[in-house]
């Protein structure tokens, strides 16, 4: 594919888009793992919300 005399601008623009989208995906995935880990640690200590305890009592 011939991108012409301004190929560097086109490639850089697409590279910037890839970096920004990748950063967003990593941010969401890392945050999810972090919250899951902290929740698991707190629940392992026996901490649960009242609504969770009520749910367990009825099921």
């Amino acid at each position, binding site marked *: 594919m011939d991108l012409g005399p301004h190929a560097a*601008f*086109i490639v850089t623009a697409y590279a910037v*888009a890839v970096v920004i989208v990748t950063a967003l995906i990593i941010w969401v995935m890392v945050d999810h793992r972090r919250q899951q880990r902290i*929740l698991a640690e707190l629940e392992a200590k026996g*901490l649960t919300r009242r609504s969770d305890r009520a749910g367990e009592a009825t099921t």
Partner: protein
Amino acid sequence: MALIDLANPSRFLALAGRILPWLTAATLLAFAFGLSQAVIAPDDYQQGATAKIMFIHVPAAWLGMFIWALMSVAALGTLVWRHPLADVAAKTAAPIGAAFTLQCLITGSLWGRPMWGTYWVWDGRLTSVLVLFLMYLGVIALWRTIEEPSRAARAAAVLTLVGAINLPIIKFSVDWWSTLHQPASVLRLGGPTIHPSILLPLIAMAIAFLLLFVTLHLAAMRNEIMRRRVRTLLMMQADAAAGR
């Protein structure tokens, strides 16, 4: 499941867990199709291959504005209807909107240099989009400044609604003021002025970016609900330690 059931964070989490894998697959397929169309799209008769920057610049610009509009509806949800997920939606949309607006600014600048001879001009369109980006940063900063989520939500909602004034300014800036930026060529009353061979890849990429936003937003909302659960549990732990 009725729509009102989604107001329950636990039900929302369950639904998000079921939907996210399908949304991820749909996003990947949409990008595969959109990028393949972008590659085979013919060069513009004036701009040559540089017009391919449009396929990542325009969807990012549309999303930057769409996400602020979505945050404005969520702001009404917080202030008027007090919907329990409204501020979660607004808070988690802001960083994604900021990222897409930054993508719009950088790719636009890289498109402008070979076409206009400059990376930047302080005209109505470019400046109003820069203001949008700065407002995103302002809202994010506000959320981080106020620790109590409900207080932060109200303050951010007011700022978001005030900032919504900028959306019509961005849209009509190319009509109101003299600018290097081209006038509207897709979303206009007389219909698109772009040839279908370039319009189709643009629409395909716009759908792909929209699906990406929905996927990321749903995942980020799930994370925020979990973060608030963590906060509640930590406060319970602190109360227990203090003997309250």
